[in-house]
């Protein structure tokens, strides 16, 4: 999984004059991890829960080693990352694809995200979590929109504020582990063998979860997200929504719940309430948006609320649904941001009121947009339905009222997505510039169609993807059952 890093080095070393080669090389380099993911899908290990693959001794004087491993959940997210990277390289316009820094930053980002999903200990998880920020800083800072300075700094400060708590949590866990093993062992195997007291478990859970939830983002901590999405360049938004938001939820699933379960049981209700508020709030605010990119950004708040609701319910079905919903949301929102990016390149505006009736000039675009909207709403037969249905099914026994309220989020999603679609695409063409809009060309079609195929595939045949998350969900839910049994 080091390939993206090598790739970015290659790109940075290439002379500027050969800029037309940057895109093919980047695509080639991101096909390699994509191919590896496909290969791993067929591997028997990939369906299990977390297994260590490789350990490196790092700081010997403190006994710190870095562990890397993989599980079905990580593999799915790696696959999602790989495909979104590949397609965003395909979709970006000439202006970006000929810039060394842009391609290089995305490859570094890919490397860091892979690192997060593969890391098998707290320290490397934190390192990659923090290392994500540097390429994002440059991506948003250099190629962002008008108000990028504010948005970038807000994004960085929010994330760093969260990661400070993860850092202290890591240190705390390290000190505890030092007390019992004699070295700063932070790998998941050692952590699961340590027995934390209820007090420690609560504190650690709060620290880690707070840091990860900022990244998710959960309701009161979400305000960085719309700004960051709107100001980031298209490829940046795709990756931010598609991949980076998953990092937070992944961290909760991988670290907070399995190791600090007592803390989870203590605070899960608060998380559930906040995520339901997030579902409804995100959806209502999305209805009011006049900027289509902001609308999709708020819809992310709503969708990630579903993921967190599923996680907080903490039974097998809802956890499975949450993981599937993470992948689905990456595909759907990634595709929507890509589509908005295509439109922005043509008209240089994202205001919904600047469009109207463009179905007449861009029929293919309108069809694809409608398809993605349906997927986002959760129409049966498409991917969104699978995840949300499983989450609501799973969480209903635990939180009857909350999941009942959360279900309204699906209805609200239909309102904001379809209303936006109606305002943008149907009716007469109201603004003159829109009469000359060009429909999607082949390159753009190629870059968006694979996502549509995946949405349909997951919607029709969900057991395929379910097979990869079963073990993870089972593992986590069993731990939760054990602990809640012990408490009662």
């Amino acid at each position, binding site marked *: 999984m080091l390939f993206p890093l090598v790739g970015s080095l290659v790109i940075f070393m290439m002379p500027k004059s050969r800029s037309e080669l940057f895109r093919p090389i980047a695509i080639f380099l991101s096909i390699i991890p994509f191919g590896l993911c496909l290969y791993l899908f067929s591997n028997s290990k990939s369906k299990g829960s977390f297994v260590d693959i490789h350990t490196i001794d790092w*700081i010997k004087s403190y006994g710190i080693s870095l562990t890397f491993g993989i599980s079905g959940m990580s593999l799915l997210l790696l696959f999602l990352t790989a495909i979104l990277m590949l397609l965003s390289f395909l979709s970006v316009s000439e202006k970006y694809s000929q810039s060394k820094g842009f391609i290089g930053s995305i490859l570094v980002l890919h490397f860091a995200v892979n690192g997060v999903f593969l890391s098998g200990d707290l320290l490397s998880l934190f390192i990659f979590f923090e290392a994500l920020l540097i390429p994002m*800083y440059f991506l948003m800072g250099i190629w962002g929109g008008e108000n990028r300075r504010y948005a970038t700094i807000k994004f960085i*400060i929010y994330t760093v504020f969260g990661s400070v708590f993860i*850092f*202290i949590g890591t240190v705390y866990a390290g*000190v505890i582990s030092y007390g019992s093993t004699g070295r700063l062992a932070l790998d998941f195997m050692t952590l699961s063998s340590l027995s934390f007291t209820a007090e420690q478990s609560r504190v650690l859970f709060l620290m880690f979860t707070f840091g990860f939830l900022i990244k998710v983002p959960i309701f009161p901590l979400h305000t960085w997200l719309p700004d960051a999405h709107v100001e980031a360049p298209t490829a940046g938004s795709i990756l931010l929504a598609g991949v980076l938001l998953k990092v937070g939820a992944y961290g909760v699933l991988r670290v907070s719940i399995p190791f600090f379960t007592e803390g989870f049981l203590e605070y899960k209700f608060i998380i559930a309430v906040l995520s339901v508020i997030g579902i409804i709030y995100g959806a209502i605010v999305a209805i009011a948006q006049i900027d289509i990119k902001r609308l999709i950004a708020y819809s992310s708040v709503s969708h990630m609320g579903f993921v967190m609701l599923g996680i907080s319910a903490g039974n097998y079905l809802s956890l499975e649904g949450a993981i599937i919903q993470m992948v689905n949301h990456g595909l759907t929102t990634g595709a929507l941001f890509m589509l908005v990016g295509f439109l922005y390149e043509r008209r240089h505006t994202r205001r919904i009121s600047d469009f109207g009736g463009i179905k007449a000039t861009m029929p293919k675009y309108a069809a694809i947009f409608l398809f993605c909207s349906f997927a986002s709403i959760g129409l049966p037969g498409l991917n969104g339905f699978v995840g949300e249905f499983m989450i609501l099914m799973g969480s209903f026994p635990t939180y009857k009222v909350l999941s009942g309220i959360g279900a309204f989020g699906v209805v609200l999603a239909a309102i904001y997505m379809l209303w936006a679609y109606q305002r943008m695409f149907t009716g007469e063409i109201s603004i003159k510039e829109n009469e000359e809009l060009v429909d999607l060309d082949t390159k753009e079609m190629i870059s968006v169609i694979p996502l549509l195929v995946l949405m349909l595939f997951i919607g029709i045949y969900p057991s395929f993807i379910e097979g990869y998350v079963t073990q993870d969900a089972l593992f986590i839910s069993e731990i939760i059952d054990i602990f809640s049994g012990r408490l009662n």
Partner: protein
Amino acid sequence: MNTISEAIGFNLIVIGPTLVLVATALILLFCTITIETSDFVKKSITFVGILLTIFSVFLKFGLFATNGVSSYFTEKILLDEFSLFGNVLISLILLFNFSSIWNTSTELKDKRTEAIILTLMSASGFMLMVDSESFMMLFIGLEIGSISLYALAGINRGDLLSNEAALKYFLLGSLASCVLVYGVALIYISLSISGFYDSAIAIPYIGSENVPLTTFIGFLFVLVGLLFKVAAAPFQSWAPDVYHGSPTGYVGYMASVAKVASFLVIGRLCMVSLRYVMDNFQLFFLAVVVISIFVGSFFATVQTDMKRLIAYSGVIQSGFILSGIVSGVNGTSASLFYLTAYTIQLIGIFTIFTIISGKLSSDFSIENLSGLFVENKFLTICFSIFMLGLAGIPLTSGFISKFILITNLWSYESYVLVFILMLSTVAGFYFYLRPIWVAAIDKPETPVEQITLKRSEVLSLGVLAFATIFFGLLPDSLINLSRWVIQNYL
């Protein structure tokens, strides 16, 4: 004769680095006042002098291997791990600042050699300071070092800011020295001790509860004098003005050398002399650390002048380093790692400032950085590495040093302190990333010229940036070194 010299512990190798530096300075002085010598010859003399200094530090290592921790010159000079560590760091600071110091001095026209001589003399003073066993020696070393620095701050006489900086540094610095020497006197009259090891023996002998209050006040005054030098709040008020006013080329040297020497002495005080009475000082140190963090973070966020920003960031970093030193033995080793990493980044940043700005100019507003990416990519990359290192981003030495330090602090159960320190890093991300933004991202409004670098500048910057990354990826060697320094006190 032989027996006498043995009895008083006469040994030239122990003060070798100091002697070589003084000798080099004197040769340069001689060349300036008697025979016309070309710049090249002077440059060679200085460079050879610095190399010989490093060589004599190696000789000291040889002596240490045979004699172990030992004292010389009737218990005035001490040879231990702290002094060796200090010698190595100071000579390396001198080596890596050589290019910026020399290039700045050539712009001084007729006073150029004076500046070099002052630099060498101050280095010799600080060498003596880290070697000192008796408090008087400590004072002498500190004064030799500091007085040269006062003069260096004001060497550009045409510049008002430079004059102001020198005067301010001199007045406040001599006040701090007064306090220090008063503290030494108080310790002497109350317990009749005048050395680090004397007090380490005397205090447990009479029992820590029987130590007179005067001694505590004396130690407190000594610490205040040293904390002034490292610019820990509330003794930081000189730092921004002095950094701002002094010729840019010298600030990197001035800032790093005084910090390194003073922190090593503080470390030795806490490890050796105050070992059994550290509890009585915890509140004082905690206050200094917390105030440093708050004052530094607060003022650094509002600075528009880069040199002032680095000064306030130095206040924060002093707080970090101090928090480790006072917490215990392992904390001290973490702090030494931190100190080394910070020194590397500090020198790197000021080398870059020296290249960008006029070398003698004192102002360096953040706008000077704009367009740096167009002017020179190598500089921008190095600058970003140093700034990210200061902020503590993973894969730089800054992260490792923070991680080790925080881990140690947490294991000493100073939880509140950890939270304060970590929150200051959040603020740090704001003001460390802003200059990178200006340098790498903002488009310059006026057309800019390319900057061409001298080979020596490329070499020293490259080594410093490489070291920042290297200690971030493979920190083992430096950690082991910093543990070796404190191994006797475990």
